[in-house]
Structures are given as C-alpha cells and as structure tokens.
C-alpha cells in the first residue's frame, strides 16, 4: 500500500437497531476492515464498545458522538495522544456492590493493561436516568440531574483527568419483552439513547474525551442469546471497553485554530484536521445524522451501506448523492478505490460514454 491514509468517518447510529452495530460492539469487525482500507478511521464508542470485548488498532480514533459531529462539521480537529489519564465518574445512584465491581474493573485495567486511570469521583446526587423511545422507534433518554453530572465532571477535570469514563445507574426491567427481544437479536438497544445524552453533555461541557458505560445488574443465563449481544453478558460491567477506548482517545482541539489554520497544522503535524476527511460511511437508511449531513454538505463522499435499521432516512429521501454499498466489505473496496484515486464509477457496469456539451 503506497497511497497515504484516507481519513474516514464511520457512523453507526446507536439505538436504531442496526443489523450490524446495533448490539455489543458488533460493528467492530467492519471497523477493523474499514481501518485497514482507509488507513485512518474516526468512529464513535457505539462502534468500538463491546463491554468486556474491545480491540485496539492504532488506525482507529475513538471519538464520542458529540465530538464526531463537531469534527465532521469542521469545528474540531483531533490530536492523537500516547495516553489519556482517564478519570472515573460514578453515579451516586449505583449500589455499593456494583460500585465495587466497577472499581475492580478499573484496577484490572490498570494492572493488566497498564492504563492510566484516576481519580475516581462520585456525583453528589443520583443522576436519575430514564429511558424513552421516539416515534421513529429510536432509543432516546432523559437525565434527571444533569447538573450533578457536570459538577462531578468539572471536579474530575480539575483533579487532572484528561478523559472521563462515566458510569450511570440505569433502570432495568429484566422481564421486559424489549430486553428479551434485544438479547434474542431483534429490536433496539433501549439504553443507547440515554447513554448518548450523558456522554454528549459531558463532552460538550468539558471539551475532553468522554464515554459512558451503564451500570446494570447481571442478567440470568439464557440459551437464546444472540451472538451479537453476547459481549455484554460476559462480565459484570460494561466498563473495560470504555477505559481502553478512552485511554488513547484523541484530544479535541477547537477549529479553526485562533492562529491561521495552516500555521497551526504545520506546528502540530499529527493534528487530524476536518478538511482532511476523505469519506464518510453510514447505514443507507440512517443518513439524517449531524455528522453525515455535515460531511455531505462539504462534498465529502458518502458511502451508504445496506445495514437495516428502524429508520428509512435514505439518500433519495434527503436528496443526497451517495456511493451505495451492499455490505461493509463492498464499502471497504470503495474506500480503497478512493484512497488510490480510482473513480468508483470505473468499477461499475454499464459505464456510459462521455457526451460533449
């Protein structure tokens, strides 16, 4: 491979029941493939988080959804780092035994993976997370005490954390049909919407990498567990993948820089600038998110992958021009073509002749 990397944004929206990516980090294989094809993949925690399962790839940049939207819109650049100091923010509403489990997971990541974790702080009030479904069927959520979340986040940043892993106590209904459906491989991740609100709010307020892991009681064993959901039921927490992801999450740099952008870029050669985005990959029925639309409006090629979900927000509905892909494998081929400067149309048949105007 001689072509330079083609920075690519991968979006698999959380909480909309994507066949690939709607479960426990089950879009990771696709992300690994797209990272190999592009040489530089920027994606969000929903893609990378497999609870107890994770994968570290130096070509993949772990950027929370709020940061990803801002990067795609040209308002942030990304600065890769060797190591973040990950502060741990625990919801005061987590019961003591479950809290201890999370602390032991953090200790395990320090001892076994060598991650820099700490300090650990609790919110001064329970966060009061509530789950909701939008009319579309997508997962959303509410936070009763956003002020408590932000106060704790500020204290952690002041105490030296350069990234924050937040763990909030989520409501649970182990007998619900929705949960049974999710574990069986259908329906949407009911937690996803509230998770996104929590991490978006923290990133927006603090301007540092943040990600969320829900605190839930372990579920009883079921023989009907879909392989895509299995990662979430291997351990007692969802925290390991978040700590690993955040440990190398890039810094979020306001952009354009106060000095001339070109001067800033030359002074900081590792900076990943939004102008460098070469492609965005998203599910063909979920093209209405901020990151995808921002890229499309800047002329960045959009690769729309057939990945069924509860939404039908297609390129046709929005009037977008996209490169369709029947699979993430095909999307990888398109990325390679773009990276090598090969016109994707040359790979299709029929190929219409040029007409002189």
């Amino acid at each position, binding site marked *: 491979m001689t072509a330079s990397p083609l920075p690519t944004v991968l979006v698999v929206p959380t909480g909309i029941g994507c066949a690939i990516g709607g479960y426990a980090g089950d879009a990771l294989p696709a992300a690994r493939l797209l990272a190999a094809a592009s040489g530089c993949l920027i994606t969000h925690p929903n893609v990378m988080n497999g609870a107890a399962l994770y994968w570290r790839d130096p070509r993949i940049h772990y950027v929370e959804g709020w940061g990803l939207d801002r990067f795609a819109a040209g308002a942030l650049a990304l600065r890769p780092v060797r190591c973040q100091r990950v502060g741990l923010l625990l919801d005061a509403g987590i019961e003591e035994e479950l809290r201890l489990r999370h602390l032991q997971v953090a200790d395990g990541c320090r001892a076994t993976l060598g991650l820099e974790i700490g300090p650990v702080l609790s919110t001064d009030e329970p966060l009061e997370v509530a789950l909701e479904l939008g009319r579309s069927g997508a997962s*959303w959520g509410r936070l009763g005490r956003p002020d408590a979340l932000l106060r704790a986040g500020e204290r952690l940043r002041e105490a030296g954390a350069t990234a924050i892993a937040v763990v909030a106590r989520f409501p649970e209904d182990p007998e619900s049909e929705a949960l049974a459906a999710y574990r069986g491989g259908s329906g949407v991740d009911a937690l996803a919407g509230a998770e*996104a*609100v929590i991490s978006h*709010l923290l990133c927006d307020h603090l301007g540092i990498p943040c990600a969320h892991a829900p605190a839930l009681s372990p579920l009883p064993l079921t023989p009907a567990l879909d392989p895509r959901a299995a990662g979430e039921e291997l351990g007692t927490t969802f925290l390991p993948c978040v700590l690993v992801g955040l440990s190398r999450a890039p810094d979020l740099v306001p952009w354009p820089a106060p000095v001339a952008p070109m001067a800033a870029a030359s002074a900081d050669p590792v900076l990943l600038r939004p102008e460098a985005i070469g492609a965005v990959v998203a599910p063909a029925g979920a093209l209405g998110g901020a990151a995808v*639309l921002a890229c499309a409006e800047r002329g960045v090629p959009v690769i729309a992958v057939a990945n069924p979900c509860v939404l039908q927000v297609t390129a046709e509905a929005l009037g977008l021009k996209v490169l369709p892909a029947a699979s993430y494998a095909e999307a990888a081929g398109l990325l390679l073509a773009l990276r090598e400067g090969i016109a994707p149309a040359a790979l299709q048949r029929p190929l219409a002749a040029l007409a002189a105007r």
Partner: protein
Amino acid sequence: MRLQPLELRLPRGSGSLCAQVEQALAAYGRPLRWAITGVESPPGHSDAVATGTPTGTPTGTPIGVATLLIEAVVIADGPALSAAPSGAAARSA
C-alpha cells in the same frame, strides 16, 4: 439548565439541512443531539402540484414540500416547553 427532548416536524427548505435543523432547534435551546428520523413526502405529491390543492399538508407547509421529522435533545434554560414557535410544529417528547 435542563435537557429538553423534542420531536419537530419541519418543512424542508432549500440549502443546508444542517443549518435548517439547527436553526429550528435553536428556538428551544442549544442543540445537544439531533437526527432526522423520518422524511414525509407531500401526500398526493403530483396531484397537489397539478391541482394546487393543499390537502393533507401540515398547516403552513408549501405544496409539494417534504416534511422532515426530527428527534432531538436541546440544552435549555427556564421552564419546560409549553408552546412551539411558528414555522416548526413541535411537541415535547
């Protein structure tokens, strides 16, 4: 400070979709997270255009204009949402 969930119906205008959506949401607060979760084509589109009959279109929606369905969370000050500003039909989610 509070988080306000919203569901908006927004007639699609020309130009940037991002700008249209964020401008509509700004009437309620600072957008934190949003997505277009549906697009409704104007009902009986070709007939409506041919006859000029605005049947079935939301109030104030020009004939032949699609409607964007938006789900969002905004950061708001003050009391919870009660009435929607004109131009975008909204309900508190």
